């Protein structure tokens, strides 16, 4: 196990390095940000001066070299837009995103597994049909639509919740609910599908024959094996959220990393793009490692 984690750490470091090289050069391809930062009526000399100030005049390879040198000295560069260290900007935003992702995915996992398993227990039954339709609607509804309609209903008309923002625990209710819907619908379907296969597998039949109770069969025997693809999809959805729930962060005014990343891309604030990708990538790598370890826990036959 230890050697597995060690090996994984090294190979992940290599991927992170590759990711940085990729992102560095690809973002530079999206153009010189000088005109974007200076007012339209700035004279040519101000533009040249800006390029020199931010090292945009150097050849790309020189820029890359100095970036790598700085990163190795734990200096992730300065945000052009915010005139502050890029890493500081990212680390302020990341906890918001992480909290949103962890809470939401926790709830999604819990509810999707319970409801999905129950639906799979009686395929074609009323509960199955109903939860199927609900989850499909959930999986294919645009988030911003739910978010705005939710704000109009629960904040404006009923006055039960604040419209947006941060501060109290009530501020988290709407964003988490909206963020919950889509992965819930998706994962519920995956749980159902994979439970149907698991329930028809020989060992469940054996358990049934031995007279094990229905509930135990579903939640202990079948679930354990049916979980492998489920965990994978949960990981995929969680990765999406760690990269930022852009729509939710934008509408509800959460200062998370998703909105930061999009803004930085649109503003060509390269240091912040790189720093946020490094932070989120690290989180995603760690998550994938945990998922792989979980595979081995759930299915003792899997060895690394």
């Amino acid at each position: 196990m230890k050697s597995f984690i060690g090996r994984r750490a090294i190979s992940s470091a290599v991927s992170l390095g590759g990711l940085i090289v990729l992102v560095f050069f690809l973002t530079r391809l999206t153009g010189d940000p000088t005109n974007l930062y200076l007012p339209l009526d700035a004279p040519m000399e101000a533009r040249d001066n800006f390029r020199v100030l931010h090292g945009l005049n150097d050849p790309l390879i020189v820029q890359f070299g100095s970036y790598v040198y700085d990163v190795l000295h734990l200096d992730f560069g300065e945000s052009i837009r915010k005139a502050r260290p890029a890493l500081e900007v990212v680390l302020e935003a990341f906890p918001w995103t992480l909290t949103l992702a962890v809470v939401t995915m926790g709830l999604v996992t819990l509810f999707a597994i319970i409801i999905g398993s129950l639906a799979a227990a009686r395929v074609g039954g009323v509960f199955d049909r109903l939860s199927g339709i609900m989850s499909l609607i959930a999986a294919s509804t645009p988030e911003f639509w739910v978010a705005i309609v939710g704000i109009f209903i629960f904040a404006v008309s009923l006055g039960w919740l604040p419209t947006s923002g941060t501060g109290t625990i009530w501020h988290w209710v709407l964003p988490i609910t909206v963020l919950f819907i889509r992965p819930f619908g998706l994962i519920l379907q995956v749980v159902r599908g994979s439970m149907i296969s698991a329930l028809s597998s020989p060992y469940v039949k054996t358990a049934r024959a031995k007279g094990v109770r229905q509930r135990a069969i579903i939640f202990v025997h079948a679930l354990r094996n049916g979980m492998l693809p489920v965990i994978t999809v949960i990981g995929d959805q969680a990765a999406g959220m760690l990269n930022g729930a852009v729509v939710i962060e934008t509408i509800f005014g959460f200062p998370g990393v998703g909105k930061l990343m999009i803004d930085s891309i649109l503003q060509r604030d390269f240091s912040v793009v790189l720093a946020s990708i490094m932070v989120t990538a690290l989180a995603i790598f760690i998550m994938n490692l945990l998922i792989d370890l979980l595979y081995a826990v759930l299915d003792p036959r899997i060895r690394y």
Partner: protein
Amino acid sequence: MLEVPRHPALTIMKLLWADKFACIAALFLVLIVVCAAIGPYFLEDAASKLNLRGRNAPPFDWSQGWLFMLGADSLGRSILARIAVAAQNTILIASCAVFASLVIGGALGLIAGYSSRRLGDTIMRLADVIMSFPSLLLAVIVLYMMEPSVLNLVLVLAITRIPVYLRTTRAEVLEIRERMFVQAAIVMGASRMRIIFGHMLPIVVPTLITIGTLDFAFVMLAESALSFLGIGIQPPDITWGLMVSQGKAYLHQAWWLSFWPGIAIILTTMSLNLLSGWLRIVLDPVQRWRLEMGGKNND
């Protein structure tokens, strides 16, 4: 199970008829495909004809004619005609992106799960890189350097969706590999190809198809988000996603602008899913009897 040999299409129709939900779903999908195929030729004009005075006309107002039964958009164009015309781009983008990512992701996942550890690890770390590369950044870069055409959009969406198929397939393969019948097949000297295609794919494919049908919705909505940021399909081209995102500004006054295309996305996803559920039963020898009984047994 002995069958009287019949024309296979007839058998399929009979099996479909046995599941009423799947039947309706299939009819709806046929309608969408017909729209996608011929809609643009017949309704292109109606979908792009400007009428600023009649903007945001409400739905179910029959005085304007059947084209306006779903209302008019913010430039007074028939929403019904636009949904029909947009079906082409939408279906093209979503199906190509899902198909490409499913096939590529599935194949890489099989390799990663069933080949040497070194190759498998390399593929998985590659998936990590793609997974942690924000899809919107990729979209900005690709669409910056190239035109925002249907093809490039498919490229972006397909790449970003590969990891989920890859990781799912690999996870299943790791598990199946250890099952008794696969071990037995290996001991009996079955070829790799035979094990992969004969034993693994039949178990992996249903899961991939479940994810794939749901991904249809995901891709359509992702495309909507791209359009909203000004980097996806651009007007005057239309997709359902674009219509949904353009209607956002009018949610308060004219809900129908984004509601109808949203419904189109939901119904398409739902139909695909019902049909894939049906397909799953048809392909599963253990379950198939349910349908052959004529669908009367609905336990």
